[in-house]
């Protein structure tokens, strides 16, 4: 995560950020205390978790829910709290 910072000669003019949405390269997954684990057999693909995840960390594959993106998931537990079939468990993160 820590990288050498660019000097003024390498930065774009005006300090502009040229790539849209480049926060993807910043991993907020390190904030997590609890980790969501999804039981995909229980999941009914209602996609409510996709709508209510504040960090866009619900992975969608072929139109279906396919677990969480642990690089960005902050472990807030919203997906587990709203899941209508209780398919998501919050497990204490182990380093």
């Amino acid at each position, binding site marked *: 995560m820590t990288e050498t910072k660019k000097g003024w000669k390498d930065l774009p003019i005006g300090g502009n950020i040229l790539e849209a949405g480049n926060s993807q390269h910043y991993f907020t997954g390190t904030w997590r205390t609890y980790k969501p684990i999804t039981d995909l057999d229980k999941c009914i693909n209602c996609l409510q978790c996709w709508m209510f995840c504040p960090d866009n960390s619900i992975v969608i594959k072929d139109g279906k829910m396919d677990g969480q993106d642990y690089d960005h998931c902050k472990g*807030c537990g919203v997906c587990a709290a709203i899941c209508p079939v209780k398919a998501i468990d919050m497990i204490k993160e182990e380093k």
Partner: protein
Amino acid sequence: MALTLKDLINKQIPLNGGHRMCGGCPVPVIVKQVLMSTDHPKIIGNATGCLEVATTIYPYTAWNHPWIHNAFENVAATVSGIEAAHNALSRIGEVPEHNKDAKFIAFAGDGGTYDIGLQSLSGALERGHNMLYVCYDNEGYMNTGIQRSSATPIGANTTTTPIGSESYGKTQSRKDLLSIVAAHHIPYAASTSPHNWMDAMKKSKKAIETQGPTFLLYFAPCIPGWKIPSDVWKKLSETAVKTCFWPLIEFEDGKWSLTGESKLIAEGKMPKIPVEEFLKSQGRFKHLFTDKNKHVIEIIQKDVDKSWNYYKGLAGY
């Protein structure tokens, strides 16, 4: 375009992950609901606030739309200027065809709307710019350390209205911003809550597609400010609507109406629950549940009922 989750998941998300909003903050969800409700190209302005600060920490930005921040008080003026410039450039043929129907959206918190940005908002509404102003109302200056704003409800414990032997928190009621905005006779204004995403996205779509200035007031629970766990905001916003603390209101072409749960409550199809249910799960109201401060809950209930009856009356119930 139909607003179904099956369609929405295939679209590009407006705000990428990796932003540094608090874990469990509903504001990124609000941004997603507003911006994904239509397919227009959009230009976003952001007032100073949590959303602006935490999504654009240099050298990163979470936004997938053109985005500008100017100052705390002038997001409405900034976005109305962009809209006017877009029109001027369109007239001389400088805007490419695919951007002709671009939409202009301002995001601001309650500090940047109720207090600091009120005059620039009023000016933009009066000038009739074709823009949408979205206020996410977390009822205080949460980003700077939980100070009271004019959106903070009675009885809330904040750092500038601290509780103590002589104080039960804020003593004044909230400012009724929706009525102030509607008094500009704009074509569309509404209040909504992110838990009812269908209601919120329908209102966003209507607001974006309506010609002229439009306004959306969003309920936005704040995890550190309201002292709540990070996973309860959906349930909490639902309770706020069911207690009529936060009614879902629509103001369209001079006519008021209620939507979602609020409509069902007004029609007697859903029970209206006491405001205590909303207060008891939040740390900022914890002090009200002692013998000394019990009477404040009655004051809050009266305040909520007064505002609810007012809007119910406007909607013709």
